[in-house]
């Protein structure tokens, strides 16, 4: 099955905790039926097969899963790669949300910060000079 990589500008749909658990499972074990998914993650959470089935259905509608009918049941496989999903969520968080004045993010360096190459070089030189000056005083 062909894996698809959403473009960087693609906005990732919001994913709930159960949806991510299902995706994690399908990345490890592709081609599982709802009953098989339920056997692994449903029993310990106390959720029904129907809940697992509707979660799989939601992920399919979000175009993150592909399904194939085998007998009476669909078998699901992830069509989005884990790394590409992470990359898209990061792009969303650091791009769309950080540009939006309403969102609160604590990043080491804001994604919206940028400096010209000559300014970076000048700052680097300034740090070196200040360090030397400070060490010279001690």
């Amino acid at each position: 099955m062909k894996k698809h990589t959403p473009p960087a500008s693609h906005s990732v749909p919001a994913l709930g905790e159960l949806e991510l658990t299902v995706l994690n499972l399908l990345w490890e074990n592709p081609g599982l039926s709802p009953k098989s998914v339920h056997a692994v993650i449903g029993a310990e959470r106390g959720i029904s097969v129907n809940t697992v089935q509707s979660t799989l259905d939601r992920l399919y509608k979000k175009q993150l899963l592909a399904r194939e009918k085998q007998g009476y049941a669909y078998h699901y496989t992830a069509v989005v790669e884990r790394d590409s999903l992470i990359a898209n969520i990061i792009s969303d968080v650091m791009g769309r949300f950080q540009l939006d004045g309403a969102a609160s993010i604590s990043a080491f360096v804001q994604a919206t910060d940028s400096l010209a190459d000559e300014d970076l070089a000048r700052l680097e030189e300034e740090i070196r000079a200040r360090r030397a000056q400070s060490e010279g005083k001690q």
Partner: protein
Amino acid sequence: MTAMVLLDTVFPAAMLGWLLSQVLGAVTAKWLTPARIAPRIRQQRVLIAALSAVLLPLVMMAAILAANLFPSADWMASHCGTHSHDHIHACLNFAKQGALPVWQAAVAVLALVMVMGSLVRTRVTERRLQRRLQALIKLSNGQGRFRRLHDTRAVALAVGGGEPAVLLSSGLLNSLNPHQRRIVLAHESAHLRHGDPRRNRLVVLLLALFIPPLAKRLRAVWENALEEAADDAVAQRFNRFDVAETLLRVLSLQQLHMKGAQSVNSGDTQARIQRLITPHQVHPVSGRLFEWACLMVLPVMLVAVLVQHHAIETLLSWLGA
């Protein structure tokens, strides 16, 4: 009659309180949060200014309606007797007579819709952001507070909410030496230790009550103060030049992956680096003075509105005319 009192007096009083909060916000952004003041004090001041957008309208409404608490008092009865029917009167028993003015009702509804719209929009955006951050935690590798994300870009995030964590991308970790990694971790841990993600969400929500340019300005002051406080915490443990170098390194790594992307901001990280490498003295201003002054404003306003009840009604009447 109650609707008339609400429109005639309570709504203008709330508007007056809101306008005062905007003035306080503008003064805070322009004069009360200079870079020479310690970041923690700057944060407190922005937080107080942000809270004023809720507290000042509430105090003004409470004060203007407080007259109703003493309906049997003599001064109240004689006060009510001096009013003409056309004069605004914040009294549930002696409201101005006549039809409900449509334009006044429309303005009140419009203001309410705008405020609620701004709050809902901010809340929804925050909720979406938090869901994505929690998704990143779920997709990350590692246990506990420090998580690794498989991504080539240089990303370091402190995430609060349900499961507090520091998220570091493999692109960042692979490009830094162990000392620089410790600096980034210490910086993000300082955010978690001070509860910054939680306070960030509160301030962002409160700033939705400010006019957008002012909210943007206060948010910039707030964010700079948060980052500088975390920088200071790290600089106490590590050499400040090492911290500055790490900031510069992460900024240049980030730019490698952002070539061609549109930049909206060019000063914050540069200012943080300059602050770290330039010997500076934190202004020995008393951090409590402003806070006490703001706390005193609330009861003083309450008393002033009560004492100057008639004058304020006259002013509101004049403004509404």
